[in-house]
């Protein structure tokens, strides 16, 4: 049974290899192959899951050792897998959602001539992501870590002929690379500290080491997590990443890859538990991002960017939860899973809307679409209710638990965190309601929005193929797209309940992450009530602003905060001014220095030698008499010398 673990990765990897190397002859059925292999890996995951359920909960972890990877002196890295409950959760989420999105993409990418390659990349992503979660040591995890980075790079830049896409892809990879540096340094620290970087030994050995080292490791891991999970200060790439095709945004930048950071922190729980300072850092990052993302989400008019903002803030929740230690790990993962469902659903819904609206992304040019695309409306709506935490839906359970845990952290810290999370919940409710209202309710602004700017921020090339007509004809998407949405909608409705009834999920993960209920200053009910209260506040605010009065097609100038938020709270400008400009100047000047200084010194010496020899050459003027002079002078010198010697 354990030998199956490898196949989780192998199947999609095989698919990627075949699809990318296969060439044109695979164009016809390439997408089916890709989907099939994704599904296959889901089936394997399911089988392993059942098998795992068979075991008693403390011996559920499975291991598979393939081969010794880098055996160098004391440095022993193996290609070995570890599949415990935590990994299993991810495996199911990744393969499940992944498969659905493969199916969705069949319809979505129908008109793209490079669909085969798209599926190749998707498979590559699945492989890397699975490797990331089932690796049994940090180095192998690192491979998956960068692998998903590569896949995301390829997929964001899938429409490479669009400079914006190419740039966004590059940005994403670079920012991630910064995070990766953190991870690699963390690994080095582990190696120097523990002499190994396999999960088991490292996490067991944490007790013996100084807290300082652990804090350092923890912070480095946090840096990595920030990069991958788009947390402040490395969040800037996520918004641009929306340049990629919508399924990609749904799979990679909502459901799975961006949550890798949460996985990393949860996986390294032991380290963080032993390093409170690192935990504080984690919590702070989470809290900041939570609000940060939410604010951005409120201001964006681009539907995908708005959702991206919300992703940021939701992951902020998870990171925060993970930062709370044993109180929070379980809920972090739980929220991660539910979020995987409803956010993927929302994105697919958004994709479906754009599909029907000639790839218009500006929500101000939507409106009243519920009549035209009912299925999308319903699924999207369920997703919406889930994310704002409407009682009974999955988002409610997971988020509520996180808020509780935040309070349970105790002390002023607990209060701050708790209130932050509550505020976050309110804002979430606000901006999601905004999205909902702008898209599906109100009058049909796309009618009078006669002409759209030919190049909308993320016009997808498919649009050109479909031809630009002044007025879009909203229509429901094909089955291949709606079915996955429906499935995900189910997930987003019931998953939460399923997990939290009788704390199933807690018990499931406890052996891996450990769990304890903190001592919450507030009772669960009060928290729940307050959550609902802020939820209502948020919704009603949004209703007051967008539901009652008509929405201007052209965005109003808005307050300072709004404008800042539209520009991702000036993060990009900062990067541009400080990093890009500065970098350019640095390199330019260095090129100059290299040419003039380092090279100049050498050339200078060469020139001087040449000049000297030129001067010496003049002495050889070919006149016998001047040679005679030198001879004569030489003789004189000799005589002088002899005389001196005799004198001495």
């Amino acid at each position: 049974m354990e030998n199956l673990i490898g196949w989780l990765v192998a199947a999609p990897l095989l698919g990627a290899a075949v699809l990318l190397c296969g060439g044109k002859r695979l164009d016809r059925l390439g997408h089916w192959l890709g989907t099939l292999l994704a599904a296959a890996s889901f089936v394997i995951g399911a089988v392993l899951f059942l098998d795992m359920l068979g075991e008693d909960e403390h011996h559920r972890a499975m291991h598979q050792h393939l081969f010794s990877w880098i055996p160098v002196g004391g440095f022993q890295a193996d290609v070995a897998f570890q599949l415990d409950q935590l990994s299993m959760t991810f495996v199911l989420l990744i393969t499940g959602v992944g498969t659905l999105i493969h199916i969705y993409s069949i319809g979505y990418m129908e008109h793209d001539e490079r669909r085969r390659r798209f599926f190749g990349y998707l498979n590559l992503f699945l492989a890397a992501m699975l490797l990331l979660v089932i690796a049994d040591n940090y180095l192998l995890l690192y491979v998956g870590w960068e692998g998903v980075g590569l896949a995301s790079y390829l997929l964001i830049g899938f429409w490479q002929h669009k400079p914006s896409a190419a740039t966004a892809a590059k940005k994403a990879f670079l920012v991630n690379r910064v995070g990766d540096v953190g991870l690699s340094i963390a690994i080095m620290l582990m190696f120097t500290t523990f002499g190994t970087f396999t999960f088991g030994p490292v996490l067991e050995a944490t007790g013996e080491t100084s807290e300082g080292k652990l804090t350092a490791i923890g912070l480095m891991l946090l840096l990595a997590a920030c990069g991958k999970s788009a947390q402040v200060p490395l969040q800037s790439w996520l918004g641009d990443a929306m340049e990629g095709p919508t399924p990609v945004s749904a799979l990679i930048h909502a459901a799975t890859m961006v949550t890798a950071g949460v996985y990393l922190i949860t996986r390294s729980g032991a380290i963080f538990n032993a390093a409170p300072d690192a935990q504080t850092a984690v919590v702070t990052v989470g809290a900041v991002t939570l609000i940060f993302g939410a604010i951005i989400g409120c201001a964006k008019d681009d539907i995908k960017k708005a959702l991206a903002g919300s992703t940021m803030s939701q992951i902020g929740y998870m990171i925060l939860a993970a930062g709370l230690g044993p109180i929070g790990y379980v809920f972090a993962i739980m929220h991660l899973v539910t979020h995987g469902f409803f956010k993927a659903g929302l994105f697919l819904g958004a994709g479906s809307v754009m599909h029907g609206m000639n790839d218009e992304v500006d929500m101000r040019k939507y409106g009243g679409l519920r009549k035209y695309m009912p299925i999308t409306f319903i699924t999207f709506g369920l997703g919406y209710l889930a994310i704002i935490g409407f009682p009974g839906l999955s988002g409610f359970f997971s988020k509520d638990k996180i808020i509780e845990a935040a309070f349970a952290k105790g002390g002023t810290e607990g209060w701050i965190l708790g209130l932050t999370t509550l505020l976050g919940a309110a804002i979430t409710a606000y901006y999601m309601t905004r999205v909902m209202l702008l898209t599906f309710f109100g009058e049909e602004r796309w009618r009078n929005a006669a002409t759209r700017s030919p190049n909308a921020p993320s016009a997808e090339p498919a649009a050109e193929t479909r031809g630009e007509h002044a007025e879009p004809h909203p229509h429901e998407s094909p089955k291949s797209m709606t079915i996955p949405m429906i499935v995900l909608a189910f997930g987003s409705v019931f998953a939460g309940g399923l997990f939290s009834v009788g704390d199933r999920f807690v018990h499931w993960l406890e052996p891996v992450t450990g769990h304890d209920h903190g001592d919450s200053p507030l009772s669960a009910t009060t928290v729940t009530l307050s959550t609902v209260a802020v939820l209502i506040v948020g919704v009603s605010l949004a209703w007051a602003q967008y539901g009652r009065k008509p929405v201007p097609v052209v965005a109003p100038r808005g307050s300072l905060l709004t404008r800042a938020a539209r520009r991702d709270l000036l993060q990009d400008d900062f990067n541009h001014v400080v990093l890009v400009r500065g970098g350019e100047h640095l390199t330019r000047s260095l090129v100059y220095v290299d040419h003039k200084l380092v090279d100049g010194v050498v050339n200078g010496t060469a020139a001087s030698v040449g000049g000297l020899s030129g001067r010496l050459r003049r002495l050889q003027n070919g006149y016998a008499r001047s040679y005679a002079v030198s001879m004569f002078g030489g003789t004189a010198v000799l005589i002088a010398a002899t005389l001196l010697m005799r004198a001495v």
Partner: protein
Amino acid sequence: MNPVNYLYLAALLFTIGATGVLLRRNAIVVFMCIELMLNACNLAFVTFSRMHGNLDGQIMAFFTMVVAAAEVVIGLAIIVSIFRSRHSASVDDASLMKL
């Protein structure tokens, strides 16, 4: 008076001769200067032989003369042939050593 004075004279003549070699451009004159130097040496030899009271110095002078004769013969011959080819007896005109 001490015969050493002859030596001083010889030195003086030798130096003059040498300077002449450096100064003049006419090959023939240069040759004469060389002769002058040789003669100065001869004078020195003779003086030495007188001081040491044996004739070896004079023998040396004798040989010097002979060799000088031979040298002059060849040298002048060379000058003549050079003059034939280059229509000039100037030393500087023969500055062919420079590329």
